[in-house]
């Protein structure tokens, strides 16, 4: 199981800015190991975000997103106390969901 995400959601002026830092290797499939073999790609493919259980964002990522990916987005109409949940799924089928409260 992967390490937890760090999610920070801050409300200001009727919307909330959400910053997410995920913990993932994001292997590009381009690198070679010491023996000259290509390291297989291993990356987050799908990211979704929910506000109070309702989906607000979906994203697809390729292997070109950096290791330990960062993502920032803004949810309209979110206020302090709302729950933001972020889920990712990688190309090996691993998945993780973490939740944070808008402050």
């Amino acid at each position, binding site marked *: 199981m992967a390490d937890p995400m760090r999610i920070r959601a801050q409300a200001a002026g009727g919307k909330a800015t959400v910053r997410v830092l995920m913990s993932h290797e994001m292997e*590009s499939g381009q690198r070679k190991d010491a023996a000259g073999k290509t390291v297989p790609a291993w990356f987050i493919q799908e990211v979704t975000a929910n506000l109070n259980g309702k989906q607000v964002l979906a*994203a*697809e990522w390729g292997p070109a*997103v950096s290791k330990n990916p960062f993502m920032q987005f*803004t949810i309209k109409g979110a206020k302090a106390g709302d729950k933001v949940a972020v889920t990712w799924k990688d190309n090996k089928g691993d998945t993780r969901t973490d939740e944070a409260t808008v402050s």
Partner: protein
Amino acid sequence: MQSRRETLKQSAVLAGLLASAGFPQFALAAFNKAGFDAKTVADATKAYGATSMAESKDVTITGPDIAENGAVVPLGASTTLPGVKQLLILVEKNPSTLVATFYVSDAVEANFSTRAKMGQSSDVYAVAIMADGKALWAKKEVKVTLGGCGG
């Protein structure tokens, strides 16, 4: 007796129905492999159903002029236009051009940032795909001192 081909076709249709039923608001949420395999900006955009491309001042790409480390290049895409379906971030000279696609809904602003790997100095693109199939893009050159792919 059904031929194998018919069976395959039907199961593809069924899979499509299931996918769209699961995500009524995000009908295209199945992973778009064609888009991520594409080698050019135009091909990647087409994989998301865009029919025409035009440069637009209303689409913004943000990024550094010079990135010292190509493994971590902060890139952002945003637009002020209404009716955006998807926002794409692309790096032209990467082995696969497309970095990330964000599906825009009514509940979020069309303004996303993330960090990307860049193999070499290249133009980076933000492409906004509108509800009518038009793709509007903006580009910016980012110089990379140390590449982030291979190694």
